[in-house]
């Protein structure tokens, strides 16, 4: 990270408003994209399928929720329900004979319409009350999915996802599924990066910070909160469908319960509210930390000759999420992204700290 800002000059508004105005960042990004796209060639199938693929998909989900929580400042504790609606709607749509691309849109639209219906009701209240209302959405959607056999096939049933297809061509390989998920993640990432530099994103931030001041410059707070709900739910729905098609490939109602919602909230908060990069970090930490932690606790337990039951082990990640959320809210409310930023700013002028 030893590079300097000196000598980087922008002579047009256009070049100053680029997504990555610093040349080094662009090169770094190119390298990371290359690493990401080439991952199937150098990672073992195990690592690709059980670490990288879920990371990419959950990052997409975290980005979708971050639009609502980070940019528009509205808490949503029912994001897993949003994803469930998308997943079930998309699977039923493909079974109905729609091509997959259309089915993904159906999933997204179903989520956004239902999400919006709840959002419109929920947005009459703020803060804690909004959180509780979205929690109600989670319960209602959970209940409906389990108790309406036409959707889930019953509480114990699994619903098989049809084969993933791109423009009608079946995709049967792990690499193909990974690239599909990566493609969606890239689109959502580009969207959110651009949101920050357009009037849409500025209006969202204005509503988040001071809705009365936003109103006086012509931003309708209610409209933009609803728009944020709509977009966020749409992304959630499509991501839920991708999760079903690329990762689970057979879905059950338990995959979209409240714990999952909390997990996505943890990703957003730990990663950094309102930060695109943060969602990548947050999803990575929240997904991967429990795996390492479980291995570590298991080996510690065997070293100490303690016998740990599996249900104790399975609760540890939940405790960890809670701890992480509390810890980050207390000590670094802007999350891992802010920590990254601090380190980067430090090295930008290192060792001449006074130059800042």
């Amino acid at each position, binding site marked *: 990270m030893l590079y300097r800002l000196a000598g980087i000059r922008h002579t047009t508004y256009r070049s100053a408003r680029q997504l990555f105005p610093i040349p080094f960042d662009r090169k770094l990004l190119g390298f990371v994209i290359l690493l990401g796209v080439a991952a199937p060639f150098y990672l073992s199938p195990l690592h690709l399928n059980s670490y990288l693929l879920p990371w990419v998909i959950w990052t997409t989900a975290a980005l979708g929720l971050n639009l609502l929580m980070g940019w528009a400042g509205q808490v949503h504790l029912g994001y897993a329900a949003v994803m469930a609606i998308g997943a079930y709607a998309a699977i039923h749509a493909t079974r109905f004979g729609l091509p997959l691309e259309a089915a993904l849109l159906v999933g997204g639209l179903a989520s956004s319409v239902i999400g919006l219906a709840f959002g419109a009701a929920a947005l009459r209240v703020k803060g804690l009350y909004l959180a509780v209302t979205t929690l109600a959405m989670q319960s209602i959607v959970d209940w409906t999915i389990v108790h309406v056999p036409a959707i889930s096939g019953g509480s114990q049933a699994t619903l098989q996802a049809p084969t993933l297809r791109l423009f009608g061509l079946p995709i049967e390989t792990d690499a193909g599924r990974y690239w599909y998920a990566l493609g969606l993640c890239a689109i959502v990432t580009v969207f959110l990066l*651009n949101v920050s530099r357009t009037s849409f994103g500025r209006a969202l931030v204005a509503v988040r910070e001071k809705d009365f001041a936003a109103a006086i410059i012509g931003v309708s707070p209610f409209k933009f909160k609803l728009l944020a709900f709509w977009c966020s739910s749409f992304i959630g729905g499509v991501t839920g469908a991708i999760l079903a098609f690329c990762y689970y490939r057979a879905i059950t109602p338990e995959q979209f319960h409240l714990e999952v919602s909390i997990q996505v909230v943890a990703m957003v908060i730990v990663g950094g509210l309102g930060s695109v990069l943060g969602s990548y970090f947050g999803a990575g930490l929240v997904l991967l930390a429990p795996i390492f932690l479980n291995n570590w606790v298991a080996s510690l337990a065997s070293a100490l000759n303690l016998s740990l039951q599996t249900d104790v082990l399975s609760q540890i990640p939940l405790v960890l999420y809670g701890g992480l959320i509390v810890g980050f809210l207390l000590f670094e409310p802007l999350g891992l992204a802010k920590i990254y930023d601090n380190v980067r700013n430090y090295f930008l002028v290192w060792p001449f700290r006074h130059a800042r």
Partner: protein
Amino acid sequence: MQEPEKVLEIRSVDRSFGGLRALKEVSLHVNRGEIFGLVGPNGSGKTTIVNSVTGFYPPDKGDILFEGRSIKGMAPHRVARLGIARTFQNLALFRGMSVLDNILVGRHIHMHPSALAALFYWVWAEREELRHRDIVEETIDFLQLQDVRDTPIEIVPLGLQKRIELARALVSEPRMLILDEPMAGMNQEEKEYMARFILDAREERGLTVLLIEHHMDVVSALCDRMTVLSYGEQIAGGKPAEALSNPRVIEAYLGTKGREHAA
């Protein structure tokens, strides 16, 4: 002589909060191109008037007309679209954005914000963004904010924040500007700068200004006409010199003893 055009007209407006009658039959009008002062001790209802004009507290009784059209009970974001901009007594800038972005939000009513435009930025949004950036830069030059342009708003000093809020109001190209204590907490030099900006803004942009201010030197120097409020009642009005020498005004500010001293 031609009758001056009334930009804003407040007709016997009444507003209560619970048992407190904050505005009692207040009537005033602001002519095109005027700087109109609104003064009075704390709690006299100045900000309540502004809030009922901008739609936050619709009046209980009476009517408010902007350019001949009733705006009573209109939602704040609609009032903004008619061409009224305001600043707040306690700053209301948006944290988490740079100074530039804060001012750019002010262009909201002239832009077409949409999620799709964000997704297809290079096709749909870029040209619009850059065009509005040009307009915003003019105001940045005008208010001499060039060197804080890219600074996060949180770390800009208070005096400058007031100026940024003025910039945000100005870029929306309003016909009427409402300034709620733009000079509160400023030192003499900052006050003089701000006074100059207000005069220049009226001169260059043909604005009509409604100014709430506590500094009497500023009010009497800047305003063409004014109204003095006390406990929601209009106690004096007219040219600053007349209004401020009115015994009831002196009484409101200094008490009856003070009136004897002043006399």
